[in-house]
């Protein structure tokens, strides 16, 4: 916990600029473990964070990994992802269980098998 925390000491102005002044997406679709996959390559002139996301997500990458990779808070990352998603440049694989609902027995069995195989 002694490492530099991303975003903490960043100028709020910088974060504000990154998102075009928005502080929320009005959408909670992107869970921290939603897996993001690029649907195209970065193009010249693209906002650098958008380009970085497209490079980072050539293979499935969780929202929280994108945030850590960008060095930005999760909430800011979600806004950037929403921009890319709205324009079809990324796709999102959302987690199956929904909020506060226990996963079904099959998923738990799969988790157990996976853990035992570690």
């Amino acid at each position, binding site marked *: *916990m002694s*490492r530099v*925390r*991303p*975003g*903490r000491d960043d100028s709020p102005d910088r974060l504000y600029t990154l998102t075009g002044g928005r*502080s929320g997406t009005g959408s909670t679709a992107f*869970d*921290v*473990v*939603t*897996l993001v*996959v690029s649907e195209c390559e970065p193009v010249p002139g693209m906002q*650098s*964070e958008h*380009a*970085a996301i497209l*490079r*980072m997500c*050539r*293979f*499935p*990458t*969780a929202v*929280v*990994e994108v*945030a*850590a*990779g*960008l*060095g930005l*808070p*999760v*909430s800011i990352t979600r806004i950037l992802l929403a921009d890319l998603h709205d324009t079809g440049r990324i796709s999102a*694989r959302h*987690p*199956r*269980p*929904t*909020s*506060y*609902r*226990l*996963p*079904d*027995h099959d*998923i*738990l*069995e*799969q*988790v*157990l*098998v*996976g*853990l*035992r195989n*570690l």
Partner: protein
Amino acid sequence: MDSAISEQRPALSSTADNGLKIVVVGGFGVGKTTLVRSVSEIRPLNTEETMSQAGEGIDDTGGVAAKTATTVAFDFGRISLDARNVLYLFGAPGQERFWFLWDRLFSGTLGAVVLVDTRRIADSWYAVDRLEHHGTPFVVACNDFGGPAHTAAEIRDALDLADEVPLVFCDARSRESSKQVLISLVEHLKNVVAADPEHGRRPVPEPAP
């Protein structure tokens, strides 16, 4: 813009499509990151979430900003379970200010591990209380710091732990031991589901301010 971290991270399988999460919660220095590191396939990463809270219904008489921003940093690691399922482990501080973000970050979590240092059991009271309140299934794992041994009964008593909540002992530095903690949580989850299929489908009470 790509950081060195993302370059070094092994990529997930292109078939991965289901992110799962388990939260490891505990007091400062109890070994959360150590446990995550022990089982993670990536070096634990650190990020944070911020949330601004509007002062609801409170007149801002003092000219003080009506919004306050709370920032919570957390570590996480990753385990690819199979071709489709990927488990993310979040190490999160157990202090009061963290719980503010529980709904936002960790809703839909499979369950939680409360990591306890038996020399500082009081550090875990708040986490146990909040998880019970939320109805989030959890296990208690006592990390071995080589202090005076306590019996399971003593620890249960000190935490006022319900009988059905598993209590395990572990060494967070050990991959095998940390893996067993996660397995005990998932086995507990199976028991919870079997005993009460409607568990967690009740409305979630609002967290206390």
